[in-house]
């Protein structure tokens, strides 16, 4: 059984990490491996550092502490736009444990909240003081995350949609998030992110390109729907086949973009 080491600060926890150790946040991912004897390391490292908790809203910048839970995000008065993404994670008890930082490490088909953060263009802050774009961070998923920050989206610009077979708490067949910035009535600098469509949350680059400069209506988004899965090779798993994901993604993307059904 792994030994648990609890540190007062994130800096101490970082020094304690290394070969043979794994960091534990809320426990909703790591404790599963512990329970099944599959952790593969001798030490669990955790921290009670209060700096990792909390949600800060400063002018147009929002910072979520790595230890902020999905329940805290969902209940934050200033983050109503983000509540659907936080509420997409598990049931109430899971959301009281699952953290913002942990969701960045969630394996497919989990990690719905990371998809939302990816669409928001979030920056990941790690304990060594460095920061990286989330898209880059997801390539390696390493380091002790202290917080995630992003610019507050314009009103109504952020969209999130989760497709699941089991309601209300079921894993994603796919989930999608979009940041629909506009300039002079047309889409500009759009960001679209998918979960469940690859081994990690990914940007839908072809669809983003097709959305540039078009009006947000059925005709405007049609080229993006045709390129919805371009460059992607969705996985087959117990929830859905690659074929199913590929065939239905354009429909789900249309619903996301046009707000036809926020389901």
């Amino acid at each position, binding site marked *: 059984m*792994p030994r648990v080491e609890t540190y007062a600060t994130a800096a101490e926890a970082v020094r304690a990490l290394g070969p043979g150790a794994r960091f534990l946040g809320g426990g909703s991912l790591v404790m*599963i491996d512990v329970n099944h004897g599959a952790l593969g390391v001798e030490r669990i490292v955790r921290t009670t550092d209060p700096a990792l908790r909390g949600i800060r809203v400063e002018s147009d910048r929002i910072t979520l502490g790595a230890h902020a839970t999905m329940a805290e995000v969902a209940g934050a008065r200033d983050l109503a736009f983000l509540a659907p993404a936080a509420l997409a994670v598990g049931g109430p008890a899971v959301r009281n444990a699952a953290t913002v930082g942990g969701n960045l490490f969630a394996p497919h088909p989990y990690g719905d909240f990371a998809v939302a953060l990816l669409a928001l263009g979030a920056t990941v802050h790690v304990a060594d003081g460095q920061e990286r774009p989330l898209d880059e961070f997801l390539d390696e998923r390493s380091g002790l995350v202290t917080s995630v920050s992003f610019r507050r989206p314009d009103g109504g610009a952020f969209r999130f949609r989760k497709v699941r077979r089991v309601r209300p708490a079921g894993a994603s067949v796919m989930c999608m998030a979009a940041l629909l910035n506009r300039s002079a009535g047309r889409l500009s600098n759009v960001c679209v992110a998918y979960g469940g469509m690859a081994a990690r949350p990914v940007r839908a680059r072809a669809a983003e390109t097709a959305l540039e400069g078009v009006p947000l209506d059925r005709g405007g988004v049609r080229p993006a729907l045709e390129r919805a899965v371009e460059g992607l090779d969705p996985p087959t798993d117990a929830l859905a086949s690659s074929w199913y994901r590929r065939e239905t993604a354009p429909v789900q993307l249309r619903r996301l973009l046009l707000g036809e059904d926020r389901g």
Partner: protein
Amino acid sequence: MSGTPVTFTLNGAAAGGFADPGGNLLDLLRRGVGDRTPKYGCGQGSCGACTVLVDGAPRLACITLAESVAGRDVRTAAGLGDGAGLGALQQAFVDHFAAQCGYCTPGMLMAATALLERDPNPSRDAVVDAIGGNICRCTGYEPIVEAILAAARGAREAR
């Protein structure tokens, strides 16, 4: 006795036990303290049978590090009774045939307790959301939802 000593409040009384290295709260409650009301279902936070309240919020004991509840308030279905009898929510489950095999029932009761403490007048959708992380393979959920709504009505009428 080996392991890490963990002391906390359990259903209003001081409690404690020795947690295995990396051990979870469910093991501590069942084997360390002797409260067997939280059930082991999946061990991966998927079924809700081990739901307990930690500082009033529902948590899955199987994926909660035992050491993390040191000094905190833990409640289980063992604390829901009214003296030697059933509590009102438990009685509502009986009255509405909300338990068949009963394995999910302690977790359902704790998820519902958290809801009713937060929202004494929940909508049906709120009840469904509250037990959304709790799996029942017997009842089809409707009797459970009806029992929780009935318990809420009963509490309001009693005030």
